[in-house]
């Protein structure tokens, strides 16, 4: 994620700037077209090394950095998939984005991101 000094912040996918917010609008801009729901998800399992470290860390408590990193990487991937869907529809922004996490199987978690693809001026 980078910030081009111009207008609004960016998530660059194939050279296009996509603005993502979790409110109904892009503040300061006007929505001209709605494309409906877009979503992206990913299911990740922890690998054994991390699991082992985590169970050791569980004795003394504290942050499990491996898991934090794993989950934020997966969430990034889910977001990227959502953005790709939006780009395919011809949108240039995704508004009202929500995240959710659910554990589908032992040791695996699903990260899900969804929002509304729109075109702003």
């Amino acid at each position: 994620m980078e910030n081009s000094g111009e207008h609004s912040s960016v998530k660059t996918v194939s050279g296009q700037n996509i603005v993502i917010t979790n409110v109904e609008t892009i503040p300061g801009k006007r929505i001209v077209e709605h494309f409906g729901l877009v979503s992206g998800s990913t299911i990740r399992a922890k690998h054994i090394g991390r699991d082992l470290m985590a169970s050791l860390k569980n004795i003394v408590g504290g942050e499990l950095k491996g898991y934090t990193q794993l989950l934020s990487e997966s969430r990034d991937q889910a977001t990227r998939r959502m953005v790709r869907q939006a780009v395919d529809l011809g949108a240039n922004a995704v508004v009202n984005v929500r995240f959710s996490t659910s554990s589908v199987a032992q040791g695996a978690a699903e990260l899900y991101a969804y929002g509304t693809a729109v075109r702003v001026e």
Partner: protein
Amino acid sequence: MNDLILILALTALGYFAGTWAEKRHYRSIREREKQLLHIPAITMKDIPYPNGEIRSSRLVEGSAVISIDYFKRLLAGLRNIFGGTIISYESLLDRARREALLRMKESAPDAAVIINVRIETSAIGKYSAKRNIGCIEALAYGTAIELNKQ
């Protein structure tokens, strides 16, 4: 007998190391919260600035996975028998949420305000191995608003 010794050792280790780590974590949380006071994180969607002043907006997020120590897990297990408030878990959730909020703010150092902040908590690795691992993820996300420089 050996098992008992092992459990006692783990409990002692969990108690001392866990308490020390928690105190250190809380100290760092309080310090960073003071430093980041200039970025208000609000749960409302209204932006307290006129449209013309807004330079950009973007989604920001922060997350933390925190686990509980062996001693506290034992305490919580005992609590489960009698019921009541599980104080040892309160600090776990509190730490995770505050850490997530701080990381969210740290990822938007130039923001004037972060609106529509949502905090989500989920238990991960809950059924990992045989034991019930008290390990939770807190995620904080919101829309960071940056203003034109005056």
